[in-house]
């Protein structure tokens, strides 16, 4: 039986083979070759694409290069969402490699947050971790940590250092012995078809009688359309890190083992492929 700790490693080291192509209307001095890269599921586009930017800048004039942004089949990709979430939500049932288009012009101000430096990514990442801890521990654990511990979480993510990250993150996954789990579960549910970007609500991992709530319980409570009735055809998939966990899985376990480094469970509801 696989150790639970192996799940943490599998989640951390998940990769998506990606092909980056320069948008055809970008002005280049010579033809731009596509660039191939294995993207970490747990990271953010603007954190791991320095090489992509350098590659395309080589064929462009300096004045044509503005803030980079990415698009998949016409949809601007939100860099502040983890890469694995973006893939599961938009492209999980398509052929690999994932084809992403690279832009340097006409930044879509109304759709995407600006990301002019790594500081912006760090601030966003830390804000998510803090919000997750507000839900899990009323912010007690994150507030007790020193600034260097916060920095270690960010450096662990930035440098792809599993051990460095989890040395601190394990404290955010603990709970008092008298409780059986966190106060509330940090989660967000995404559906590409809605205007609302995600659903997030207060949800307790333990029922009043002491039973563990499951993934199915969460969906029934927060997003009932994702759970099909017994007799109906299952039209949707519930996906986390590229897999469909069993609906009977305790949500507390999922939160401890399948959260992203920002400590949130990012769950995609996508159409089930028909073939």
């Amino acid at each position, binding site marked *: 039986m696989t150790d639970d700790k192996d799940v943490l490693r599998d989640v951390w080291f998940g990769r998506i083979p990606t092909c980056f192509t320069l948008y055809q209307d970008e002005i280049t001095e010579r033809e731009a070759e596509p660039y191939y890269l294995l993207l970490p599921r747990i990271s953010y586009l603007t954190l791991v694409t320095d090489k992509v930017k350098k590659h395309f800048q080589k064929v462009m004039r300096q004045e044509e290069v503005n803030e980079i942004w990415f698009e998949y089949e016409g949809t601007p990709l*939100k860099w*502040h969402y983890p890469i694995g979430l973006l893939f599961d939500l938009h492209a999980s049932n398509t052929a690999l490699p994932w084809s992403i288009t690279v832009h340097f012009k006409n930044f879509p*101000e*109304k*759709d*995407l*947050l*600006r990301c002019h430096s790594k*500081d912006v990514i760090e*601030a*966003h990442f830390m*804000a998510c971790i*803090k*919000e997750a801890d*507000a*839900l899990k521990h009323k912010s007690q654990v994150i507030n007790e940590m020193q600034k260097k511990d916060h920095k270690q979480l960010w450096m662990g993510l930035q440098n792809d250092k599993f051990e460095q990250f989890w040395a601190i993150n394990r404290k955010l996954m603990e709970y008092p012995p008298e409780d059986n789990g966190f106060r509330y579960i*940090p989660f967000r549910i995404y559906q590409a078809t*809605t*205007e*609302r*970007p*995600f*659903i*997030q*609500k*207060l949800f307790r991992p333990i029922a009043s009688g002491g039973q563990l709530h499951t993934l199915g319980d969460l969906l029934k409570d927060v997003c009932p359309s994702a759970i099909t009735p017994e007799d109906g055809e299952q039209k949707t998939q519930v996906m986390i890190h590229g897999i469909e966990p069993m609906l009977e899985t305790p949500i507390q376990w999922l939160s401890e083992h399948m959260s992203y480094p920002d400590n949130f469970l990012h769950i995609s509801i996508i159409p089930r492929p028909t073939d």
Partner: protein
Amino acid sequence: VSCSMAREEDFFLEEKRFKQYCEEFVKRSQQIGDGWEWRTSKDLGDGYLSKTHFQVRNRHIPPDLKEKNNDNTEQTLFAHVEEPLDDSQAAGVGGAEEVVRYEYHVLYSSSYQVPVLYFRACFLDGRPLTLDEIWASVHASYQARLQEGPWDTITQQEHPILGQPFFVLHPCRTSEFISAVLGGSQKHHRHTNYIILWLSTVGPVVGLNLPLGYAKLAPEQGTNADSM
């Protein structure tokens, strides 16, 4: 008591109470013509307060003006404009001034159990203000605090209902501001509308002011005017 003000640092608001306060707030706003409305989201029935107004911004006021004359600084930096100015009027006021359209939303954060102020701003030609321009336009009195930790105070985030980029005044700072205002005498504030109290405290940081009309008390309350 659903709004637990038992401890100074804990200003938690349940979502139902938030909606009630917002309802009261909108009614009061309508009475005094302050332009706030409640918008309900179609899918989940949650919602937010919304207000749009135009401000004339003078970007060339030097920062040390705040020491000379505090009252006038705010007026010069954020002259409240009731009617939208068209481009010709704006240009006629003087080269250094420009009109900015501000849109403010008040949403409820279930994670922090407090209201959160979202806003966005753009010039009349549609160009949005950058984060740097927003930081520069923060009221002079708050500049020191902002310099200490800009990343903890105002940042750009995705609006949780609309999915578009907005600027946000961080909730963790909210309890700091509110603690400073309430001090020790919570008893007097049991009947205060939390939204009015909170917004009158944090709004001015980002150019949003509440007219004194919100402070008018209903006859049955009859206590002190400073409970706002």
